[in-house]
């Protein structure tokens, strides 16, 4: 009964996955990690090419030249585009990772139930072995009365040997099921640790995104101030003349 419910859960999970895969609505679309990764790389290259020589370019432009502020704005926009693409990628990776963890949790749940059932099956095999041995003992007595039963006795002995082997295999199988449960528990813990690490990395990445925006805002302010100072200086020089 427990096993049946496990199977049902698995079936439901697979059904959901299948339905999910077939649903074309945007909120249910499976994210294409490779495409998102390519976008991040592209945005990064765009930003890096603008950012790496910003100071050098700015040094060759007069403070009030519109190109000065435009250059800062351009690199700021490229930075935000890069970090937004990275956030999209992070969200997609995290979503996929969390789904994996949920699936492994379901697996652990099913395996715990299966281990209990494997124990019961081991007992079943032991009971079947005892019953067959009893049959064999009884037939041994009957063979003394009817020699025609000898061939049947040989067959029954072979079956008893098979059941002994099966009981040993059931023992081994129950042992394997028992040992699989702690393995899966450990695996679930590892999945959860990975998820926690991903969450922290995403939070750190978002913090970095805010800092980059803060820096470019400060850089823009400086560019505007440089222009203002230059204009004040020029008007003061004209006044003196």
């Amino acid at each position, binding site marked *: 009964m427990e096993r049946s419910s496990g*199977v049902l859960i*698995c079936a439901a999970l697979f059904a959901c996955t299948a339905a999910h895969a077939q649903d074309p609505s945007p909120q249910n679309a499976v994210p294409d990690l490779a495409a998102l990764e390519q976008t991040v790389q592209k945005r990064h290259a765009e930003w*890096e090419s603008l950012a790496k020589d910003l*100071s050098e370019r700015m040094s060759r432009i007069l403070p009030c030249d519109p190109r000065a502020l435009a250059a800062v704005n351009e690199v700021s926009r490229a930075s935000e585009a890069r970090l937004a693409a*990275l956030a999209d*990628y*992070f969200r997609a*990776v995290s979503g996929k*990772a969390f789904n*994996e963890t949920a*699936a*492994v949790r379901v*697996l652990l749940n099913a395996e715990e139930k*299966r281990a209990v*059932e494997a124990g*019961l099956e081991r007992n*079943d095999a032991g009971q*079947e072995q005892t*019953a067959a041995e009893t049959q064999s003992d*009884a*037939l041994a*007595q*009957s063979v003394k*009365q*009817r020699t*025609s*039963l000898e061939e049947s006795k040989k*067959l*029954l002995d*072979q*079956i008893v040997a*098979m*059941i002994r*082997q*099966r009981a040993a*295999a059931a023992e*081994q*199988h129950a042992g394997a099921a028992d*040992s*699989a449960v702690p*393995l899966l528990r450990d*695996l679930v813990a590892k*999945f959860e640790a*990975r998820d*926690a*690490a991903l969450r922290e*990395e995403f*939070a*750190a990445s978002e913090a*970095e995104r805010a*800092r*980059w925006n*803060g*820096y470019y805002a*400060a*850089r823009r*302010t*400086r560019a505007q101030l*440089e222009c203002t100072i230059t204009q*004040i200086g020029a008007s003061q020089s004209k006044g003196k003349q």
Partner: protein
Amino acid sequence: MKYSRFLLLVCFAAGLIGQTGRDAYRQAYDVWQQVQTNLERDAGTGGAAQVAQADKSGAAAASFEATRVAHLKSSAQDAEQRRRLLQNPATSFSPGLTPPAVEALAASELQTVTRTIARFATDKDRAIQQLRQSLERERVALAALSDTIQARQKTSEATAEATAALEQARIKTAAAFGDQASQLSQAITEMEIEGAAWADYYEKLAQAIQVANAPPPPVNITTNVPTAAPRNDSTPRVPLARYVGAWTYPTVNGMSHGAQPESVELEVHEQNGHADGSLLGRFKLSPGGTADPVVRFTFQGDFGATPTQKFTLVTSDGTPGILELIPGPAFNLLEVNFQTDPRTNKIRSGNFILVKK
């Protein structure tokens, strides 16, 4: 016809073994144990009753083995699904997306701003002081940015470590599940061999009891031939219990070819290798059909040495025909095939599987 008959049998057997849970095979096991109680003990002295018990035990054992194998197959499928789920590497964050160049760029900007601030440190000009304050704010922003980049790099390293540890655990667990799947596959093979062995055993046991109970052959005082009586050549090699008894068409999941029965009751009797009996059936008619849905006949004949037994039948209105009885895939199943001479508004043939009452 043979192909359709084969399909009929396979589908019917599949229906019987459709249950896969442990409860199903335990139930079948309990039935088997009840049916075979004291059979081996009584085999030394028993007769026809023990032969019938051996036949029933064989059927019960076959039912148990079939449900057990179905259960094992279901378990093997589950194990295979688990193995597949663990086969794929876990999702990980691509490390190349936050290259070290980002940190280098921020550090370079910080150095430039810091140098510029130092250059204006002693300038008393008000405008330059304003610019220096602005640069100072920029330096603070860059310093904070550098800190967050380093913090983010640490979290990236932590994620990489967590993912590596996860991968190691996943590979180890997947290997354990791979072993489970192969163990179950082997168990299925062994169980199938065991099932065949039980069927063989019960048949041999029934034969051995029959041989012991057979009337002694006429004594030939001139020769020293062995006194053990061989089984009569005309006696079917398949135990008589596979044919003799009361049989019925199941109310659910009945299997038929051609005219579909609503109900069938069959009685088969045996005496000294001679069979007789009767069949009463009611068949479903196609919409608008005007034929008589009831088929009733008696039959008789001698049991032959082949599994398929052929008898002559006579319907209630005196039409002759042929009846075939064929042992089904399990001990409690019997395939029936009848055909009569043509009759107006009467069903003249039928093919279906009956279950022993």
